[in-house]
Structure formats: structure tokens, C-alpha cells
């Protein structure tokens, strides 16, 4: 699959202001797994429920946004902090070998799973050999 996709970043103004969110925003750790007929993206977003996550595809850019509810330990004294609860954001470009219309998203135990099928013409197929 080396011949099919070229990176072409969307055209943009010469200066793009970088967004600063009103609350801490983190980039979730992701796995991307290439399968025979699809690509799966798994994103770790602990604390995020199904209703808090938004997946948007626009102009070939797939973005994941999640917002967290309030921590349950409000009012307690924080003694040790190794992670922070905040919002999550990350985006990906979807190449033309994939069929963005067929994206499926599921959320379970704080892991978002996106499955993007390969466009039909890129899917492997078996060629029948004609003749005797």
C-alpha cells in the first residue's frame, strides 16, 4: 500500500492561532491497528463516558473530543497526583484508501474504539482464474 496516499495538508492561512482551551486538555494514548479490511484506532480516555465523547469527521480530518465530569474527590485534600482529569483531544487525517462513511465508534471502560473500513476498491479480493 505504498502507492496510494500522499500527505497533503489542508490549505490554511499563513498564521493560525493555536487554541488554548478553557480547561486542561490532554492527548490520549492511542493504538492504531491495521487489519485486512479496516483500520482500528483505540484511545485511552479514563473517566470519559459514552455521552461525553464526540467524534467528528470534517474535510478528511477525524477529531476526537471528550469532556470530563467533575471529580468525586472535590473537597478532599489531594495528597498525591500522578494523573489529571481534564478534556481529551486528538485528530487524525483519514487517507483516501479508507471509507470515512463507514466509521463505527464504540466506547467501553474508558477506551474509545473507532473502526474505519477500507474503501471497497482497496480491499483485498480473490481473483477467480477462468478457464478449465
Amino acid at each position, binding site marked *: *500500500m505504498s502507492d*496510494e*496516499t500522499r*500527505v497533503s*495538508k*489542508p490549505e*490554511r492561512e499563513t498564521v*493560525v492561532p*493555536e*487554541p488554548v482551551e478553557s480547561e486542561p486538555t490532554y*492527548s490520549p*494514548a*492511542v*493504538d*492504531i*491497528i*491495521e*487489519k*485486512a479490511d479496516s*483500520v*482500528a*484506532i*483505540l484511545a*485511552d*480516555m*479514563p*473517566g*470519559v*463516558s459514552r455521552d461525553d465523547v464526540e467524534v467528528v469527521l470534517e474535510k478528511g*480530518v*477525524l*477529531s476526537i473530543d471528550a469532556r470530563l465530569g467533575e471529580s*468525586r*474527590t472535590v473537597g*478532599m*485534600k*489531594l*495528597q*498525591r*497526583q*500522578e*494523573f489529571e482529569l481534564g478534556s481529551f*483531544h*486528538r*485528530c*487524525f*487525517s*483519514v*487517507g*483516501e*484508501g*479508507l471509507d470515512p462513511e463507514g466509521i463505527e465508534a464504540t466506547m*467501553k*471502560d*474508558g*477506551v474509545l474504539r473507532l473502526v*474505519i473500513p*477500507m474503501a471497497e476498491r*482497496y480491499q483485498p479480493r480473490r481473483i477467480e482464474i477462468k478457464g478449465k
Partner: protein
Amino acid sequence: MTIWEFETMDWDPWRDLSRMRRRVNRLLGELSGTALGGTFPPLNVSTTGEKAVVTAAVPGINPDELDISVENDVLTIRGSREPEKLQEGERYRRHERDHGPFTRSLSLPFAVDADRVEASYSNGLLSIELPRSEESRPRRIEIKG
């Protein structure tokens, strides 16, 4: 490659550093036998005078397979996060999510009443409530005379 990260606006050197640190930790952990090298899952600890709440970020595990034990003031969490099982021909394009067996052990500021410890797992967050044991609570001594 048919999918790649869209990074025009959010290039973040700290994120790359923390990924690198995770990889090094994983490598060191593999050498020492605990795959996640004592950094996973990350824990937050909050306390009041009455109880402690320990929260762990462990998305995508089966909570039934977690082993949580308490002895006096020491809380130990053991478990394992299984990697995605790949079929033949499937492969990782990107692999950032930690996996493998893990153990975290904490010494809390006070002894805990082990019988009243409660744990819940929701949306990948493990929350353990540990009430302070009666014996460890400070007592006010009346001064006689």
C-alpha cells in the same frame, strides 16, 4: 499508510518526551519482570481525617481480574492489562497504550479498616474508598484534676 496523525496545530514536545519515558519504563520493566515498571496505573490519592480515596486510571480492563488488598496502612493493587489480540496479517501502526501485568503499592497516612474498604470501576477509573481504622484515629485525652 492510510491514516496518520494530524499535527499541524498541536505539536507538543512534552507529549513526545512522556511517550519516550513510557517506552523506556516498559523496556526496563520487561527486564526486571514487572512489565509496566511500577508507573502504571497512575494513582491519585485524596484524604480527609476520616478516609482516603485512591483513584487509578486503568481503562479497558476487566475489574473482576483486579486484586486489591489492604493490610494496616498498605494498599496493593495488582492486575493486568491485556494487549489487543492481533489476527494474522494485522499489525500495529502505532502502539502507545501500556499493557502487561502491573503492581502498585501505597503506604497511606493512616491504618485502614480493611472490612469497610469499597472499590468501584467506572469508565476506566478505579476508585477505592478506605475508611480510617478506629484505633488509628487521634483521641483527645482529658486532663484530670
